């Protein structure tokens, strides 16, 4: 019987092309109209180490990591054992491997999965070509075989290979095309029934979370980015740099994160919507200037693609442990907006919304993505829904007298004419200042300006954008970011098992959308806050804001292992 979804791992040593195999399968499936997602696992090496591509493909939208993988394709067996704890397999799984590449690694063998031998080396080419040529062939061969087993039509696989190879040398193209055909053919001889149910035929986007954040920022109007390389955020800015040039903007590689965010403050002061992109260690360096942007009321977006911390932590692996620094990081009263995309697809509108909020409220907005989401590739529906555009308030201040950039009045958002505007000269000021921006140290001006900035955030009207809900029932699972997909699937299973449950995904982490969250939680008898950090950072944030009751439960554990639906169900049950 055709299945609704198929989960496949391609794993191999450095150079074996596991990621290319995963992308080929996902891309071919997306061309056929399937949904899907691929996450990446890397060994500790900076480059050339072993890697695994974790792919799931389904006829319905999918953003929950599977509890287990149906197929494990070993492109070779070198050093793959380290991945065993992160790749759940069981007796119903099949391990596909070339008998010529040795015996199954002990960690993988423990799952007692069925071994399906598949000769991946081409006897005609082995011996004639170098190793690199041989292994390139293996990954395309293996991915094509999986496509055929899943029932993805050959034309989609050929087209996907052409997409991936781009403009490679003709002999490389020919060799890979031959491997592809051989892989499609070899699948016929395998006794594996993993054919997928046919998908709904419609156009898809294939995009990573990091690319989606970048594109969302461009949609929002960002035309300047100051950044410093940091895993796992670097691929975001690498994609963004040439796109910004095409749009007349610019990305500057700064000397450090201190410079990055200060360049962004300067560019934004000049009138250009601006952004910086980093991960935990970089955000730690930026917090002083976040406070400056709050005090001087400068719009800017900071994207934090979270990784396991503290300190250097695990640079290549995910965690949701920057909630505290995003919401509270820095000295003084420095409230800011913190958003978190609810899926790879949602990275796009959330980043766009972040720009609009920063511009319209003249304040920093932090977008909390994470490695699992940022570096995941997803086949999604066309992203049509977009937030309502909001602009920076530039004009409307009375002219003539001394311009009061930080005027206290009914509207806490006050005009900020860009430099070059005659008659409105003002100084962006990080010292406590009066309405005209002149430094003062009196109690009343201090309190008035702190209140002004707090009131701006009270004005945040998120409408339906505060978050998402799924299902209804006595059990409520509140979560954010890359926990959302698994929590939604857990709620679905709990309901199917006779325990009605709802999932609440917070897109707006700060300020807490109190009224909306209370409505979403109305009637819930058991509330669980799910997050991937040890200290229950979101839980305490919500508790502190009295957004949840004192008897709410916390499901909090560190990364980098993703939450899988079965783990959540077990916690709640």
């Amino acid at each position: 019987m055709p299945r609704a979804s198929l989960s496949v791992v391609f794993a191999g040593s450095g150079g074996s092309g596991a990621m290319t195999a995963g992308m080929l399968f996902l891309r071919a499936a997306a061309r056929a109209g399937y949904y899907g997602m691929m996450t990446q696992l890397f060994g500790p090496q900076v480059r050339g180490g072993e890697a695994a591509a974790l792919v799931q493909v389904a006829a319905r939208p999918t953003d929950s990591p599977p509890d287990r993988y149906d197929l494990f394709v070993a492109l070779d067996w070198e050093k793959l054992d380290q991945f065993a704890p992160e790749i759940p397999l069981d007796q119903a799984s099949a391990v596909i491997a070339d008998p010529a590449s040795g015996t199954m690694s002990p960690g993988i063998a423990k799952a007692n999965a069925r071994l399906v031998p598949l000769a991946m080396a081409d006897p005609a080419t082995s011996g004639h070509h170098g190793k690199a040529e041989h292994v390139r062939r293996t990954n395309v061969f293996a991915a094509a075989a999986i496509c055929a087993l899943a029932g993805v039509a050959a034309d989609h696989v050929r087209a996907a290979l052409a997409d991936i190879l781009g403009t490679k040398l003709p002999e490389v193209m020919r060799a890979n095309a031959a491997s592809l055909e051989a892989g499609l053919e070899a699948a016929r001889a395998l006794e594996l029934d993993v054919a997928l149910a046919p998908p709904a035929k419609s156009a898809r986007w294939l995009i990573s979370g990091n690319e989606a954040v970048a594109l969302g920022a461009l949609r929002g109007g960002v035309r300047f980015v100051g950044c410093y390389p940091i895993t796992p955020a670097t691929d975001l800015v690498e994609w963004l740099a040439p796109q910004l040039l095409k749009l007349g903007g610019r990305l500057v590689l700064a000397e450090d994160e201190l410079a990055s965010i200060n360049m962004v403050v300067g560019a934004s002061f000049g009138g250009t919507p601006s952004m910086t992109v980093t991960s935990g260690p970089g955000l730690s360096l930026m917090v002083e200037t976040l406070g400056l942007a709050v005090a001087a009321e400068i719009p800017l977006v900071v994207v934090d693609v979270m990784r396991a911390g503290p300190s250097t932590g695990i640079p290549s692996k995910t965690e949701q442990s920057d909630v505290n620094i995003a919401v509270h990081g820095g000295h003084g009263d420095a409230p800011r907006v913190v958003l978190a995309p609810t899926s790879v697809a949602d990275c796009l509108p959330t980043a766009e919304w972040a720009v609009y909020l920063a511009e319209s409220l003249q304040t920093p907005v932090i977008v909390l993505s994470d490695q699992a989401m940022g570096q995941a590739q997803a086949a999604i529906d066309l992203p049509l829904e977009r937030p309502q555009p909001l602009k920076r308030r530039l004009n409307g201040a009375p002219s003539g007298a001394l311009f009061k950039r930080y005027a206290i009045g009914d509207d806490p958002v006050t005009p900020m004419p860009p430099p070059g505007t005659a008659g409105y000269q003002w100084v962006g000021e990080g010292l406590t200042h009066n309405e005209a921006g002149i430094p003062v140290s009196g109690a009343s001006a201090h309190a008035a300006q702190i209140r002004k900035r707090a009131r701006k955030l009270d004005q945040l009207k998120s409408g339906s954008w505060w978050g998402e809900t799924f299902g209804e029932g006595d059990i409520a699972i509140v979560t954010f970011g890359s926990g959302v997909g698994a929590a939604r699937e857990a709620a679905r299973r709990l309901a199917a098992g006779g325990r009605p449950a709802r999932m609440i995904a917070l897109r707006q982490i700060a300020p807490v959308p109190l009224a909306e969250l209370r409505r979403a939680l109305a009637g819930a008898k058991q509330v669980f806050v799910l997050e991937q950090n040890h200290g229950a950072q979101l839980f305490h944030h919500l508790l502190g804001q009295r957004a949840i009751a004192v008897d709410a439960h916390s499901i909090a554990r560190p990364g980098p292992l993703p939450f899988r639906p079965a783990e959540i169900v077990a916690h709640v049950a």
Partner: protein
Amino acid sequence: MSMTETVEPHCVRALAAKDFKSGAHPIWCPGCGDFGVLAALERALARHGRLPHEVVLVSGIGCSSRLPAYTSCYGFHGVHGRALALASGLKLTRPDLDVIAVGGDGDGYSIGGNHFIHACRRNVDMLYVVMDNRVYGMTKGQPSPTTEPDWDSEIAPGGIGLRPFNPLSIAIAAGANFVARGFSSDTDDLAAMIVEGLRWPGFAFIEVLSPCITFRPEQLEWKGRARPRAHTTEGDRAAAIGAILADDGFSMGVLFRGERAAIPAPQLPTGTLAEIEQQFAIGA
């Protein structure tokens, strides 16, 4: 017509130094060298000819970093040490403005030292004026990177014992395109230097000896030591650095002029967002 009211051809009316005063009274101690720098800057801006709203002064933290609020220009008084980064982001996105970063030796050479080096390398078309008094004045008298090794202070009794930072040779080595040294009380010379630095392409750096007579009263002697430099080195960085290192640090004037092209302004758009988005479309 006085020295301060030079008519520039593109200006509708003559600008005067007073057009660049905000009216706010500086917090500086009486006798502070920064008064002279402010006066020279106002005079230079009047001569330069851009209107106050077309000029932005960016600073960090310290006594001299309070300067932007004392002018009638746009300004930004940011965090300690990051003025050059902030100014670079502004100038790169708003090449139509004249951007001047100002600050002190602690702000620029210590906490901001890395940005100083990289601003020289990046060669953004802007001017950086450092008011160097060889002391942290706002925190009441600690040795800065340019302080003499034997200068006695509470925090470093008997002297800090470190070799002073040489900002001019470092700037030239790192790629600054225009490097000069001025003295705060030689207002005319300093104003001329500022005008030239503003107009010189790329990153221009002016180190101004600006005495702090509150914490370094011995700096009153600088007036007797400052003297004009014999000649400027054009183009040859090694020669310029050699001359600076051989000098006692009191030769005033433009010490180096380079020919590096400034980092270019952003290009006009060549594509649309819709075209960019197409790369993600797949299938039917």
